[in-house]
């Protein structure tokens, strides 16, 4: 059992939790994730490690309520326990090779991006950041990130904060305006990472994206998380989650993410009060 020692709501339906997990904290690195289970009948879901402290033995997660498990997780509060919390999983991000990087975070993808920005900033890399979201309420961690980057740009779909439009608009503007980056790191919805990668391919800037396929074990034993990268099948949980954005087959990834759409709806309807379904 893993105790929740802090909880905050960052945006509507987006929560932050600090969890007591000394063994995970002991070896966690930026870019890695955990797999958790909220209760006995629960599903195993992956969430990125947003931050960690080895000596105090905690890690933080930031998650968006999108379905059943994240909904159940959101119901837990300070002092409650998460049943299972396994990690750190996946490869750590390779962050030490760059001199000037542009990081692009979309929606809750900002969460996994934050420890990477912090790590590079502390290592002396110059980091510019573009954050994008539906509206100003969904721009996460802007204050924290502003403290550890050179320049922060914001785009919202409805124009309620920063540029009205997509993160790709800002990316295009920056690069066409003569800004030079030796690497781009993009984390967010698949459509966003696909659009960013298409642009950076044109500009010939190497780009890393973080894939978030459906997972079960997170250790390479089910193959459910497979993604096609450069024509080869790779397992996101052990070979990733970071991959070369110019080589990822995003269309396939989007299709695979929809595999249980029917069941997700079903489980949602069954659990609505008055629909005869049981909650837990």
């Amino acid at each position: 059992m893993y105790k929740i020692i802090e909880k905050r709501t960052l945006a509507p339906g987006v929560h932050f939790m600090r969890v007591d997990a000394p063994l995970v904290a002991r070896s966690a690195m930026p870019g890695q994730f955990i797999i958790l289970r909220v209760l006995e009948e629960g599903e195993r879901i992956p969430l990125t490690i947003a931050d960690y402290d080895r000596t105090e033995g905690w890690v933080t997660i930031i998650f968006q309520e999108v379905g059943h498990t994240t909904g159940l997780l959101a119901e837990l509060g300070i002092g409650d326990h998460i049943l299972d919390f396994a990690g750190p999983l996946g490869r750590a991000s390779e962050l030490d090779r760059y001199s000037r990087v542009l990081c692009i975070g979309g929606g809750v993808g900002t969460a996994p991006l934050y420890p990477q920005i912090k790590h590079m900033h502390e290592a002396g890399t110059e980091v510019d950041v573009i954050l994008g979201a539906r509206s100003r309420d969904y721009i996460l961690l802007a204050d924290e990130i502003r403290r550890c980057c050179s320049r922060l740009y914001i785009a919202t779909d409805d124009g309620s904060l920063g540029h009205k439009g997509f993160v790709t608009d800002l990316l295009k503007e920056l690069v066409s305006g003569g800004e030079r980056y030796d690497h781009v790191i993009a984390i967010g919805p698949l459509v966003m990472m696909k659009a960013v990668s298409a642009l950076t391919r044109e500009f010939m800037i190497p780009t890393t994206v973080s894939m978030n396929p459906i997972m079960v074990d997170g250790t390479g034993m089910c193959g459910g998380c497979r993604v096609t990268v450069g024509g080869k099948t790779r397992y996101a949980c052990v070979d990733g989650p970071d991959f070369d954005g110019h080589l990822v087959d995003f269309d396939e990834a989007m299709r695979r993410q929809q595999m249980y759409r029917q069941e997700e709806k079903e489980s949602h309807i069954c659990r609505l009060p008055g629909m005869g379904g049981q909650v837990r």
Partner: protein
Amino acid sequence: MSVTYAKTPMRVQDPAVRRNNFDEVALGYTLDEAMAEAGRCLQCKKPMCVAGCPVNVQIPAFIKALTKGEFESAYNIINETNNLPSICGRVCPQEEQCEKQCILSKKGEGIAIGRLERFVGDGFLDNEEPANRALPSNGQKVAVVGSGPAGLTAAADLAKFGYEVTVFEAFHEPGGVLIYGIPEFRLPKALVKKEISKLKALGVRFLTNVIIGKTLTVDDLLEDGYSAVFIGSGAGLPRFLDIPGENLNGVYSANEYLTRINLMKAYDFPHSHTPVKHGRKVAVIGGGNVAMDAARCALRLGAEEVHIIYRRSMEEMPARAEEVKHAREEGIIFDILTNPIEILGQDGWVKGLRCVKMELGEPDESGRRKPVEIKGSEFDTDFDMVIIAIGTSPNPLITASTPDLKTTRFGGIMVDEATGATSKEGVYAGGDAVTGAATVIQAMGAGKRAALAIHRKLSEKACINFAVNLNAAK
């Protein structure tokens, strides 16, 4: 005394009924049936059966005790070499091992040794191992990685020798393949859980959600004060066919399919929260136990038609004979001498399978006749789900994070067979992690040998230390 050449049959659930439920198929012997079967044993002076068992269960001795009604003594005799009789009695490929060698099988059917073992074991499932069997703690810690049959056996023996044993398991539940792979209708999970609670009663500690190689490394364990480490991490990495269409929606590895169903209880969705696709027409590729289990699960989840697609013939099929028989009775269709070359899709989902017909050619290195393609024999069949069960290999997480652990060509951990000692001081390994996918009883045998070797090594060390201290004190 007249000799009976036919096995006492075991009652099973009616195939028409069982194909719709996950309850156990084979129902076990009653006391009378067990006595009748035990009575057939000739009590050979030189029992061939014992040599056929990978851990040399003293078969005539336990059967003799059984015929005399001395159940506890029968149980203790089995337990000397096999501490999971209820499990082995159900899943050992007996027809290849003990029963094959039984003298009676020369003229008729060998003794149903597995069924008798199950009968004896089941009678003692609720008996917690008396705690006084274990020696008092000797203060030394040993780490066991993985909680499949290899790890469980090593942990049990080490605890009995007096070590403080901690089992590290990556999943949230211990048991390995016994829990996530082999389905309920062949091996009830309640039984595996009882065996694990016996280990807990012996003082073994289970730490779940710890992935060795990620959460902690083998070197971390040695630094954290474990005097020895036993690695029984299995062969969990699924193999795919490498043919077009394998990433279509509706294609599963058997590992994923079975894990969703057994460990995550997807058959109980949405009460349990993990979903699994329910195929209508399902193709399972492969001919081993894993393929049979996946096919029979698909049937139980409501598939109208389930095909086993296997490139050799029925004779070469590696699955336990009983499982093939049960699968056939349940209506699984066997497409033998058939090899898939492409998974066909529509809008991103599986729509069918393109296969070629095969014929058996010359024997290969393994002695089995090699299947060769018949030119121009391609044909397409409609399917909406494909499950790939063509084998697994050892997971590289541990070996990749332990550079001084030598591996074999196929990624297995290299060991000295008699002791399980690896190339790294203090580290032992056994089971599928060493051999690649094999059997429950072989994994248990390896766990047992390694536990003994660890005990020898550590007590030798303790002796030397004692002598050194004694000298220093003089």
